[in-house]
């Protein structure tokens, strides 16, 4: 196997993840895309969704929303607007955020910030639930998350 990629997930607040991965998958503007070591250098936009990092013997799931990713053959740097480890998602807070966003949307349907917040909250909820499932059944990890087919690049 090729040398692992050095991965850094950075938000305006902190460096959320730093490590070496064999593979990672994230939501790009044209659907999900995966990165193996030796990837063509590129820079693109990150959407709202799940970022999966596979290390040698472990997997990490992060929620990301907005930002950029810079890929070189041996490194990936994600500069995310919002990011959180899935296991740290607090369902209560997410629910509150969802309710707030929904309320704002009912008052003003054109509120784009609220629409984005709602999308984030819904996605966080979904990832949190998927995480709960994973904790119970470790056999089939991917099947609990409904996602468009992965695009290889």
């Amino acid at each position, binding site marked *: 196997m090729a040398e692992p990629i050095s991965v850094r997930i950075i938000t*305006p*607040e*902190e460096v959320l993840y730093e490590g070496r991965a064999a593979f990672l998958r994230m939501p790009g503007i044209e659907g999900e895309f995966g990165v193996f070591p030796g990837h063509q*250098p590129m*820079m693109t936009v990150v959407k709202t969704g799940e970022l999966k990092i596979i290390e040698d013997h472990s997997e990490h799931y992060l929620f990301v929303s907005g930002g*950029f990713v*810079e890929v070189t053959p041996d490194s990936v740097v994600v*500069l995310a607007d919002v990011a959180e480890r899935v296991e740290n998602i607090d369902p209560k807070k997410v629910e509150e955020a969802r309710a707030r966003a929904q309320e704002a949307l009912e008052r003003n349907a054109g509120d784009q910030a609220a629409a984005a917040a709602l999308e984030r909250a819904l996605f966080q909820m979904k990832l949190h639930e998927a995480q709960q499932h994973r904790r119970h059944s470790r056999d089939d990890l991917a099947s609990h998350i409904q996602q468009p087919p992965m695009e290889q690049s």
Partner: protein
Amino acid sequence: MASLRDLRRRIKSVTSTEKITKAMELVAAAKVRRAQDRVLRARPYAEHLEQVIVDMIRRSQNLKHPYVTEPAGPRKLVILVTTDRGLCGALNSNTMRIVLQEMREHQELPWPVVAIGKKGRDMMHRLDRNVVAEVTGLGDRPHVTDILPAVHAAMEELEEGRVDEIDIAYAKFVSLGRQVATMKRLLPVDLPEDVEPLPSDFDYEPELEMLLEEILPRYAEAMAYQAVLENAASEQAAKMLAMRNASENANDLIKSLTLTANKVRQANITRELMDIVGGAAALEQ
């Protein structure tokens, strides 16, 4: 000379004030460490973003964007970062002084202001300045999303050509004992000259110019956020020092008041003895 009762009352009141300032000092000391930590943790984002931007700008020739072209004129907007609360020494007045000085030097300009923090906002309202946007009540853990509306309001002024430059003024955190009032350019981006280029042959998706359009505001936001975090650390450091001085002053005051009170007490005792002795002597005669 004040009566003994008054002196005792003052000693009691100063003692309770000292207890409060001492407590505030300890709280600030605990908070300053965490605030410092937040500044450090937020640094990689801005640093990496800067590296990426510099590299992208180098790759894109003839890029015309109000965020990267040198300022076309002298009109500036100031993002004034101050604290929400007082009791932190001259921190806010130092920041406001350098801003007001700039304003006085170029009185003919409009000088719109975006205020982050109550103290600066109140000051600018008093001076009848044009406050375009304001954020207050950030607390000890400001989140980047809290300041975004204000930063966006400032960027809008620049994009629509009402100002040529955005500056940010805040108290830079140098050390526990030193905070420096700083005013620096936020936009257009002040590009450093010596940054290592990234590996070439990059695929940009969408194309470079569009990406840059997205990234530049992020950079300004990150820099503003950094300033807000530093200001928060400075606030706690300044508060710690101010409260320590207040506690020391209270201690000195208690000492001198106690001394006076003891003198008055002794004088009273002496007078009473004199009365008794005088009375006894009168009876004997």
